[in-house]
């Protein structure tokens, strides 16, 4: 699929960017890890949108998925565990001209970075965020995460995870100013690609949760979902994903869902037996924090001087002669 560039689309020599122009290094993820597919989808998105690599920034935290920026030949920021979102916000506020993407994991986003996640939804800055949800800590070797299913054994829950899993979709849908929420699964790449494209084109904070396999620690976690198509519910709508007859032959549970219907979105997101795949919610009307907050004028020394002098005037004391007031007699 060839996308239509929305800005400077040509490389210097007149050729278009190819997927290879966005590739960097050899990913060190395990063979069979869902991260590989997500990486490929992003590289195709960049190609389809002809994003100038220098105008594109991938920001991540810490964890397996957060190695992501190292494998993109764009600008990248591989920062602190849980803190990708505030870094990305700082970038976007200062540089609305950059395309900002965030890759985060279930531990990064839903555990150590939870406060930032909630507030990032509320700020609604224009960026695309993919939460790689393999429901386990991989890099630190198999500890339970907030999205780990109850009862699952891990190194920190040898008798099974004690609590019900946190639901990232209902959580996101519950925050004020939410503007784009979608869910994808790494084993249906065509839908993820389409969701990613729509997320990119959404002006605001686009949150995609991707259910993603960890072949090393939880190789069978999603087997039942993969083998029982009835546990997947594909959402289509003229404002969402297009209906795909090919896909319908396998995934026969498909419904029309209006992404502007947040009540229905929350209902679908709450279903723990059947995973909705598609665009749950979209609202183009929510203002973006960077548009509300950013100074609309370009800073110049003259501007600084004028502002300072105006302020200094408020605080200035002009010396006055004292003699007259002393009533000396």
């Amino acid at each position, binding site marked *: 699929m060839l996308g239509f560039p929305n800005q400077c689309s040509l490389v210097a020599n007149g050729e278009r960017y190819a997927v290879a122009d966005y590739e960097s290094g050899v990913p060190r993820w395990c063979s069979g890890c869902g991260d590989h597919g997500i990486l490929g989808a992003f590289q195709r998105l960049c190609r389809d949108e002809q994003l100038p690599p220098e105008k594109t920034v991938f920001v991540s935290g810490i964890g397996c998925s957060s190695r992501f920026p190292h494998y993109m030949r764009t*600008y990248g920021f591989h920062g602190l565990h849980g803190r990708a979102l505030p870094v990305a916000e700082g970038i976007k506020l200062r540089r609305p001209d950059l395309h900002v993407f965030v890759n985060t994991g279930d531990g990064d986003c839903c555990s150590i970075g939870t406060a930032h996640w909630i507030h990032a939804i509320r700020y609604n800055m224009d960026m695309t965020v993919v939460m790689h949800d393999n429901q386990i800590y991989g890099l630190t070797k198999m500890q339970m995460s907030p999205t780990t299913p109850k009862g699952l054994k891990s190194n920190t829950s040898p008798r099974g995870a004690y609590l019900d899993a946190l639901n990232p979709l209902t959580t996101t849908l519950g925050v004020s100013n939410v503007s784009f929420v979608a869910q994808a699964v790494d084993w249906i790449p065509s839908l993820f690609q389409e969701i990613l494209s729509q997320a990119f084109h959404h002006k605001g904070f686009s949150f995609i949760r991707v259910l993603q396999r960890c072949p090393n620690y939880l190789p069978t976690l999603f087997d039942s979902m993969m083998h029982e198509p009835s546990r997947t519910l594909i959402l289509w709508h003229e404002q969402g994903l297009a209906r795909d007859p090919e896909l319908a032959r396998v995934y026969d549970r498909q419904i029309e869902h209006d992404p502007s219907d947040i009540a229905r979105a929350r209902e679908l997101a709450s279903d723990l037996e059947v995973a909705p795949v598609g665009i749950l919610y979209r609202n183009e009307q929510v203002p973006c924090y960077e548009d509300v907050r950013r100074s609309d004028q370009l800073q110049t020394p003259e501007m600084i001087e004028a502002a300072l002098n105006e302020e200094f005037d408020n605080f200035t004391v002009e010396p006055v002669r004292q003699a007259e007031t002393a009533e*000396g007699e």
Partner: protein
Amino acid sequence: MTASELGPSGSADGGSPLRAPIETVEAHIVEVISDSGEGAQKCAQAFATVSAKTGNGVWTVEIIPAEIQPPARSIAGASGNRIRIGSHDVTNGGDAADLILAFNDQVLLGRVRAGELRPGCIVLLESKWKDDSDPDVAKQYNDAIEYLTREGYRVYEIPIEAECLKYVANPKRGRNMFALGILNSVYGQDTELSCDHIRYTFAKKGDDVVDGNIELLEAGYRWARDNLDIRFCVPPSSTRERQIVVNGNTALGLGIMASGMEVCSMYPITPATSASHYLSDVFRKAGGTVHQAEDEIAACCFAIGASYAGKCAVTITSGPGYSLKQEALGLAVMAEIPLVVVNVQRGGPSTGQPTKVEQGDLLTAVFGSHGDAPKIVMAAASIEDCFYAMITARKLAELYRTPVIVLTDANLATAQQPIPRPEFRAEWAAPPFDQSPVGDDSAPYDWDPKTGLSDRFLPGRPSGMHTLTGLAHDRHSRVAYDPEINHEGLRRRSLKLATFQKALQTPRVHGDREGDLLVVGWGSTKGAIEEAVDRLRSEGCSVSSLHLKFLQPMASGLGEILRRFTRVMTVEISWCDDLQEEMIDEDNRRYSNLAWLLRGRYLVDVDCWSEVKGQPIKPGSIARAVRARLDDLHSPNSRVG
């Protein structure tokens, strides 16, 4: 209406004015205190501004209770200001008050018990409590008057509320303006200057409010002129330049604007927040944005993100918030992202004394974060420093690609002082950032072998794409799997501080360049230390002082200075153990922050003295402590002498 127009014959009630002689003094310390919310601070600030306008040196210290609304008439509830005015530059709040105006007897007793009034201090006290309907209150008042008189204070009982009720229906309103009129009269100030200040302060509230306040101000002036036999004149200093009167936090805000920084991100914390309040109001005019983040960590990371993609950004906080930022500071060090972090220090650890001054975060600033995290640490010593430190810090952060920590404290945050009005210079502001293509052979960490310096690539520059990382990395920002690369990165980052250190000038010694004792300080204690040293020198003591602006790295030549004195001690508002205590000896004594640093670097037996009571250290206290060291030095049993 000026004072002279009011004149001896202008008395509103026809009473005969007392012709009190004017006593000329070189400096005076005045306090205005009330229950919280009664307006003593507004009165005091106006008095300070008028004093500055008439050419006096001024320093104000806020007197604030811990709670927003402590119980009325409580000893711990005093709210107001100390204003020290002088015929010369005033750099600190001084020792004990010469005159205090109090709205009730209990807050007054609080100040007496805290030892804040000099013997014989003039006390102007609201007298309405004398006949209060609550017999307990009346008794408290009368007991207080009796006690104060017995102790030798010069007490004047003033019917402030009763007088105000002649002009306004609500006695809660405007008493502070009546009080301001009293002070104007006592110090021979032009009421027109106070009127100007009232017009400016209450401009948004409309003419009625302004006129009402001015009426009360003039009433206070007349009452004092006709009823008080005290008159002082503090002659103006010779300084005739234009000045601005601001507190340290406002100066920080102005400095941030002047530096050309565009993003300030913060999370509310006392006593740092008022800098952000001010900046939130005005930053937009200078093309900047204040972001209130969801927490301290986010505030730091947001600033890091903004810095990474544009001009250096700043985050402002106080002690506990500074602790929360430590991990992010490590990232800024490792990835060489410019960042200015302001820590307006307060009493700690933990919530400690949130509104009170302390200098306990120096070692945290120097050694904080994790691993080897070299960063530049500097401290503001005056209100003027708060302004210029922001400009310097921004430049250093960008030049050395490192976090620059600027330490101020609760004393500087709220103290007001007239400072020369700065003249903006274009080179203060950050230049526009480079978006041109990056050369083929350049790398994001193109470390200069000698200095460790390198130029960063901002996103947007063609051919400069790389992934910045908190992992150990090579000069191309690729993750280091080779142990040599980690070593090289550590070396380069450390070298940058050495390179900067070569550019630092040795600070000047205040007093003789050698002698019996050198007092070393940093931060807001400068004025008090130098005043103490001047007093001791005038008594013939061989004492000098040295004040450090850069705490990491420290300038060359310091060790040499320390060794020219028989003894060296620091004076800091950070804890040190006292050798007089039974359990404390040279093997277990914990030193104040700077003393640790000086001992470690210069191998000099640096002693220290500190007072950590949540108050600025007074020059008199410092002089006493230093004198004790000198006595010890000169005693026959001295270990040194």
